[in-house]
């Protein structure tokens, strides 16, 4: 994974010269050199042939990032990250560098795919096997693309959208998560690799779950993913990010940004299944996942719903949030977070009620096993003008074993006398009674835990798109393997 030795001088030279389109063609390198500076930011932007405004935006973000400090308030513990000791750009692997068949893939990974019931064809894509041109998914993807185009839905890599729909990207990028937002979001703004752009025009109901397409296409989105979804007036879209299958990545640090914008009467449903490599039993080698996700209900009667199943990563730092600006708008957050072995998760949401009669619901289910630490951190805020705002929060924690921890940190700020906020919280353990009862009926201890945990998470799992709900159920079981003796 080291860049060719001759790369560095070439970049230096290129960086010294004035930025102009096309200089990338002169550099035949797969990687930018290690470290982060303005030249690297320029390099990334140039590689993607970005317009001047976007480069400027990246550079402004980068300069701002230099003034920021890594946040330390989350209940997670990890070694200091050396941001200069990482690569910020790597071109996608060429086919000849990929494994040529499933036979070359780590059998342990395949075993997990097997347990999750993932079809062979998809296993190949997930494991990064060089995909044959006649492979099914290509034609499937093309069919999807045609259908979407017919409906007027724009759905493409954000780097492509910058070229094909620059006015939309420029209008909305950074409007929900500004480049000044937080350390990781700012870093992402400076160096984001690629990601997804979705625009659903007025009154259009997106003809399919954007999940299926995504799953077979966007395996290689890189460590600084950037997603922007805009649902215009009266439209609807459901988007699923991630995958139940374990994904491995050489990059330990992941800092994604997701922005959602719902206009009047629009609805966005955003579901995530996050299963990045959690590290070994001692937590070594796992992904650090520092994500900023936020949606704004801009128009009246709009709705944004986040559903997440977080089972992977060594460290998770993530708070999908809703700004409820439009009157009568609705924000929802449904979350299952599991930590096993030495995993740590600090996750939750922010619901900011700005408009009148806005409503939010938070259902959070945290499960800790092994030596895992699980924290729910949430903010419910009703501004002075948010008369009639209502929130319901339910935070449940389930403990398996006696070496793990569950923590709940709810913040409630209400700025007017006409809002209603409810918070319910429970902590429970899987009881000996329940385990024995299940075992007496024929379930082995792992099947029993999986069943009990799935029951505990039911309210959240039922929010997932059907096909993923089934996979997610299996995933919970696989994640908790070995958590009972």
């Amino acid at each position: 994974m080291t860049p060719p030795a001759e790369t560095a001088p070439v970049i230096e030279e290129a960086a010294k010269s004035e930025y102009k389109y096309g200089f990338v063609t002169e550099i035949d390198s797969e990687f930018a050199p290690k470290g982060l500076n303005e030249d690297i930011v320029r390099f990334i932007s140039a590689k993607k042939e970005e317009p001047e405004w976007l480069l400027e935006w990246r550079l402004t973000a980068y300069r701002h990032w230099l003034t920021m400090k890594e946040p330390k308030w989350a209940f997670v513990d990890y070694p200091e990250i050396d941001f200069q000791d990482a690569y910020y750009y790597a071109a996608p692997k060429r086919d000849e560098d990929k494994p040529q068949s499933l036979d070359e893939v780590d059998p342990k990974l395949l075993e997990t795919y097997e347990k999750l019931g993932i079809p062979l064809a998809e296993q190949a894509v997930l494991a990064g096997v060089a995909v044959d041109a006649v492979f099914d998914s290509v034609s499937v993807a093309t069919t999807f693309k045609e259908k979407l185009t017919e409906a007027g839905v724009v759905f493409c890599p954000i780097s492509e959208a910058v070229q094909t729909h620059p006015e939309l990207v420029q209008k909305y990028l950074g409007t929900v998560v500004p480049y000044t937002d937080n350390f990781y979001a700012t870093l992402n703004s400076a160096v984001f690799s690629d990601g997804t752009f979705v625009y659903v025009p007025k009154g259009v109901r997106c003809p399919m779950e954007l999940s299926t397409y995504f799953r077979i296409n966007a395996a290689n989105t890189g460590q600084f993913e950037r997603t922007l979804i805009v649902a215009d007036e009266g439209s609807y879209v459901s988007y699923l990010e991630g995958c139940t299958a374990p994904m491995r990545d050489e990059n330990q640090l992941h800092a994604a940004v997701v922005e959602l914008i719902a206009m009047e009467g629009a609805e966005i449903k955003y579901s995530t299944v996050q299963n990045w490599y959690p590290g070994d039993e001692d937590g070594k080698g796992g992904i650090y996942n520092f994500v900023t996700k936020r949606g704004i209900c801009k128009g009246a009667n709009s709705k944004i719903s986040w559903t997440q199943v977080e089972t992977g990563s060594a460290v998770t730092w993530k708070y999908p949030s809703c700004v409820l600006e439009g009157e009568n708008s609705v924000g929802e957050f449904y979350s299952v977070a599991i930590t096993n072995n030495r995993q740590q998760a600090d996750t939750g949401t922010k619901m900011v009620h700005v408009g009148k009669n806005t409503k939010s619901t938070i259902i959070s289910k945290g499960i800790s096993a092994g030596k895992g630490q699980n924290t729910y951190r949430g903010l419910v805020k009703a501004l002075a003008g948010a008369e009639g705002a209502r929130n319901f929060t339910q935070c449940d924690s389930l403990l398996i074993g006696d070496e793990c921890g569950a923590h709940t940190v709810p913040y409630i700020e209400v700025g007017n006398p006409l809002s209603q906020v409810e918070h319910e919280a429970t902590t429970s353990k899987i009881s000996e009674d329940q385990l024995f009862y299940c075992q007496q009926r024929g379930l082995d201890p792992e099947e029993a835990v999986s069943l009990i945990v799935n029951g505990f998470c039911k309210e959240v799992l039922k929010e997932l798109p059907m096909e993923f709900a089934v996979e997610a159920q299996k995933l919970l079981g696989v994640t908790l393997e070995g958590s009972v003796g």
Partner: protein
Amino acid sequence: MSFLSVKNLHVSVDGKEILRGIDLELGEGEVHAVMGPNGSGKSTLSYVLSGREGYDVTDGEVLFRGENLLEMEPHERAAAGVYLAFQYPVEIPGVSNLTFLKTAVNAVRARRGQEDLDAINFLKYAREKGEILEMKDELLKRPVNVGFSGGEKKRNEIFQMAMLEPSLAILDETDSGLDIDALRIVSEGVNKLRTPDRSMIVITHYQRLLDHIVPDFVHVLAKGKFVANGGKELALELEKEGYAKFGIEDEAGSEAA
């Protein structure tokens, strides 16, 4: 070879001896009633046979169809055909009765080398068995035992037994907390499940259950030992004369084990 053979079984809980030498021979298709006052060790007997943790066998052996039952894990015993109808059925929030049973039935089938039942066949099978216990569809869909009345919980235990088709069913105080109607439904259900290849151990404090489920043999348990063994008439005798006849004090209060 007898179907179930318990020999000189001694069991301790937290170092305290609860069962002090139980001997029991159970033939195929036989129904044995174990009667005894609170604290005599009835529940301990049911738990040690089904494999619950925390019950230390200090002496004796249990052979089930010639195999050492005590060496098997609880789920292996279930697959081998041992079923316990719990005195206090356990709630599992968020898991519907049907999902629970589908998982259980297929787990047991897999261990018995049978194929999984698919969703449609399973539902058909569940409805068929549900009729025996007058289980309404709504009860099948509700989370396991959550919000069930006492009677519904006990009915559910027998319904699960019907689904899992054990060869040895242990009914632990299935009559406790039942009114007359519920008792009738439950015991009629049990009687319908009484077949020549299914043996049962019916544990109870009172004789009234045995009016409905008529046993082949009756054992009276006191202070961890069988103090009397006989036919069904032994239960009637006990009903008429009380445990005192066997020199047993029937103390009220909760069962110790």
